[in-house]
């Protein structure tokens, strides 16, 4: 069995935390530029230009895009033929601590939700582990800001609500969120599974690159329709009015129980941050 060093995991996670916070994805930058061409509102164009300048400053000076450097959400795809020497979850947390401290990233995690204090190093991370075939360790760090996370929701719908019910729930969620999640947003939608799994699906959907459609043409069409309807709401960048309310909508689906129809919306701000490495 292949062996991977503990420190290699620490160093990789530390680097990914910094890179995700400094370097906005090329897909998001392209989406800002595309939106600029279509925007009719002068205020919206002004804001999109600021976001482009901001991404450029962050990239060249290696400083965070946003002062909210997020909860460190980590997707871990662990090959069944690889062994990490030492505890991998401990290594990931050590990497988060190192990355947030050495990278001058803001620490936003409170140790206990009710009685706690700031942990001082942005740990613990939220780690989603998947055992997959192969002998590699794939790590994705997706820092998640608080403002947009707060505009997310899970709803246990009725199977009779169908796809139209899903669409209306997504549109209603975006409308109610208005200016709060720092639009233009990216919308992750989970459909199916169970109460807890549907939220994970919505989060996982946010890892896709802007413009990447669902492989099933049915859901790809629903994504296109939802994006169009959201952008017709007029909310616009920062909620000040315009054509660009969301940059994209991504759907992830899973088999469901005959009695259940869980749907989740996970809202991401325009700082759609995620970086991946394979060890």
């Amino acid at each position, binding site marked *: 069995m292949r062996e991977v060093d503990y420190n290699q995991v620490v160093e990789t996670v530390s680097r990914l935390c910094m890179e995700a916070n400094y370097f906005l994805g090329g897909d998001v930058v392209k989406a800002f530029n595309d939106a600029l061409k279509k925007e009719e509102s002068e205020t919206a164009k002004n804001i999109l230009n600021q976001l482009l300048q901001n991404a450029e400053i962050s990239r060249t000076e290696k400083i965070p895009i946003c002062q909210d450097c997020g909860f460190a959400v980590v997707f871990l795809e662990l090959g069944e033929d690889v062994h990490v020497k030492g505890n991998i979850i401990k290594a990931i947390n050590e990497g988060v601590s190192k990355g947030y401290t050495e990278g001058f990233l803001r620490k936003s995690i409170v140790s206990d939700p009710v009685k706690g204090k700031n942990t001082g190093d942005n740990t613990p991370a939220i780690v989603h582990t998947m055992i997959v075939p192969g002998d590699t360790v794939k790590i994705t760090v997706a820092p998640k800001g608080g403002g947009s996370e707060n505009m997310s929701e899970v709803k246990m719908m009725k199977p009779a609500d169908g796809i139209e019910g899903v669409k209306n729930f997504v549109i209603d969620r975006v409308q109610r969120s208005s200016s*709060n999640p720092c639009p233009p947003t990216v919308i992750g939608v989970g459909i199916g599974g169970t109460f807890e799994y549907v939220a994970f699906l919505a989060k996982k959907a946010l890892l896709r690159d802007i413009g990447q459609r669902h492989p099933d043409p049915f859901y790809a069409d629903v994504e296109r329709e939802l994006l169009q309807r959201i952008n017709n709401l007029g909310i616009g960048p920062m909620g000040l009015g315009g054509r660009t309310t969301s940059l994209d909508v991504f759907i992830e689906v899973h088999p469901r129980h005959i009695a259940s129809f869980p749907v989740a919306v996970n809202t991401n701000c325009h700082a759609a941050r995620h970086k991946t490495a394979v060890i």
Partner: protein
Amino acid sequence: MAEPKRITAPLSDDDIMKLKIGDSVLITGKILTGRDAAHKRLFELAQKGEALPVDIKGQIIYYVGPAPAKQGYIIGPAGPTTSGRMDPYTPKMLELGLKGMIGKGVRSKEVRDAMKKHKAVYLAATGGAAALIAKNIKAVKIVAYEDLGPEAIRELEVEDFPVIVANDAHGGDLYEEGQKKYRKE
């Protein structure tokens, strides 16, 4: 794009009355910072009728909790936080003479009514443009509540700090009007 208006902070009443929703504005001068914890303390003092540790009369407060500054920088990325969390304290601040606020997101009806009554403006900064905004901050000084760390009240010297007038002193609300204008049925 229309040329931005340049204003000097603290604001004059004359400048405030000239600002209209949708105006793109560049602020140069001195502004204060304050967010959740500082507002709570100021509010509690004001309710007891005690003097505040910093005079907010005529001032602008920026709702911000910056990231740490790395070497060679005077402040870390410093974008606006959600203003709505300050809504419960804001009418009292306006009553005490606060004239401007910088943040992101919609304000409550109580805040909008108080702004109209006391002739104040609410300016939207771009959430998530934190690295860009930090470039327009030229000096930083803690003026109260140092124990609050990133939430301490600071005086910022800013130059061409970019904002958009979201709520003016005449009752205009860009969140409502802007969204209505671009909505398609």
